């Protein structure tokens, strides 16, 4: 890959990728450990003709990006756990009204204000079920700056493709550490443009009337078409409705448009899986420690592999079942009490073969933490 080489924090890699993807509106309320995203965008966006807004809180930030997205902009906000909690109501609105947006949550320890400057992966389930009601959501993550760049561009593309908010679930270690990033040339990663209606001014536009392929073209709000947007169940004109058939169809649509395409949305990295008897499943910064263990164990002749998840929601059950089919032992490495563990246990044929290697004390799980747990499981003692 050709391109400009930089040595940056993960938060800055996220900013560079968002700019690459065409971000032109950001509203946010800076919070550790995501602050550098707002900091860098506060000068990167105006340089490129975009808008940066520092809002009074995270509720307003989320509402502002929803509004800006409706008017045709590519939008993002960035926060951490406490702010992500505040965003949940408006996040549900974006799901219901089908508004593309990217929400970055650089995780810290929680609940509440928790452990602001330390690492955690405790918001995996919040990303899935933080907002109420049946719905589907896309949540992506990464463990290296190059992957973070790609997955951020992906987040914008998926948001447009599926008309949905996409959550980028990072963590403090990835956000703050610095490493090499190669910024791809323009055009190297394809970008998905907003699907806009071809209907001209004066022609009735139905904001929720799908094309034959199921996608629903948008019209820039405040432009040539007048239409209604609501968080209530709505008809193709966007007006509230409690018609049971319509309510049923809309909830099915919101869930199916993402769940049915989970094979397209699922992204992962695979290392030494082919003959692996023990498979580590990890994501985010914990995947770096797991990868360290895998490479070291391989040098010692152990058949250990790593399945690194980059899509957390929709949960990649099919991928996990397929890749772990021949493994004797599966160890989920994460920095929470087992939020991905639960999904892995459901996905595989033999849940008894699935173990948790975790740390929940704000310290990045060390390779030696994982090795000790591996040895215990293998009956070899620490």
């Amino acid at each position: 890959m050709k391109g400009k080489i930089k040595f940056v924090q993960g938060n800055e890699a996220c900013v560079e990728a968002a700019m690459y993807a065409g971000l032109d509106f950001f509203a946010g309320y800076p919070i550790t450990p995501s602050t550098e995203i707002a900091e860098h965008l506060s000068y990167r966006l105006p340089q490129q003709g975009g808008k940066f807004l520092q809002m009074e809180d995270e509720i307003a930030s989320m509402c502002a990006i929803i509004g800006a997205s409706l008017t045709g902009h590519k939008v993002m906000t960035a926060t951490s756990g406490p702010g992500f909690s505040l965003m949940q109501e408006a996040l549900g609105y974006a799901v219901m009204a089908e508004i593309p947006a990217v929400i970055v949550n650089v995780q810290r320890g929680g609940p509440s204000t928790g452990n602001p400057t330390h690492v955690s992966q405790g918001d995996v389930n919040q990303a899935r079920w933080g907002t109420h009601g049946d719905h589907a959501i896309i949540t992506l993550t990464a463990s290296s700056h190059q992957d973070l760049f790609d997955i951020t561009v992906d987040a914008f593309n998926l948001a447009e493709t599926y008309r949905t908010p996409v959550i980028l679930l990072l963590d403090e270690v990835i956000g703050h550490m610095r490493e090499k990033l190669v910024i791809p040339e323009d055009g190297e990663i394809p970008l998905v443009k907003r699907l806009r209606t071809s209907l001209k001014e004066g022609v009735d536009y139905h904001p929720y009337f799908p094309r034959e392929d199921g996608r629903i073209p948008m019209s820039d709000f405040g432009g040539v078409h007048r239409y209604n947007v609501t968080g209530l169940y709505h008809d193709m004109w966007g007006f509230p409705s409690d018609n049971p058939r319509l309510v049923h169809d809309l909830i099915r649509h919101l869930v199916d448009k993402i769940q049915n395409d989970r094979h397209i949305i699922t992204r992962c990295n695979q290392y030494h899986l082919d003959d692996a008897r023990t498979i580590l499943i990890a994501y985010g910064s914990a995947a770096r420690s797991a990868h360290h263990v895998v490479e070291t164990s391989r040098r010692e002749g152990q058949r250990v592999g790593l399945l690194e998840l980059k899509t957390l929601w929709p949960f990649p059950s099919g991928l996990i079942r397929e890749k772990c089919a021949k493994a004797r032992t599966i160890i989920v490495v994460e920095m929470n009490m087992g939020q991905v563990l639960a999904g892995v246990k459901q996905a595989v044929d033999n849940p008894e073969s699935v173990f948790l290697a975790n740390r929940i004390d704000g310290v990045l799980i060390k390779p030696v933490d994982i090795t000790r747990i591996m040895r215990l499981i293998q009956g070899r003692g620490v």
Partner: protein
Amino acid sequence: MERSRLVFTGSGGQGVIPAAILVAEAAVLHENLNAVQSQVYGPAARGGAARSDVIIADSKIYYPKVTEPNLLVCLTQEAYNKYSSIIRPGGLLLTDTKYVKTERRVSANQVELPIYETVLKKIGKPIVFNICMLGVIIGLTEIVQTESIMKVLGSKFPPALQDINRKALELGIELCIDARPNQPFT
């Protein structure tokens, strides 16, 4: 190359974290190496013990933190007391004589130099203390080229500061000519 694991410690405001970023950035941008830099975030931004970890290697770096540094820099007594025990046996421990009185013997090459006082005497501006410390490290370990550091400095600061930065780097390299450990840096 052997993987280098560096830990820079001192007090918030001494510039240990910018120094760590400089050396890692020089390795990545100008020496075609891989590097990862991380730091302990906390209320230590001003005062208190600041710490930054750097790994430099020609292979991939997965786990980004340093557990046993083969180069440890301690620029305050507090940092020395807290961190000197983590050094890898046979590693290199660099301290500044103005701030640190070494007490315990660790199984490492201990280099104690009057970096701060030399900067004050020869340059007169303590702001380049950390750059001079980097010069010492380059002199001791040749971990990156002087010119790679100069290029990074040139990209971050106005041209007017290049002279004083170069002076500080070279002063550091001179300072350690007699202090070079007999064993090679690994």
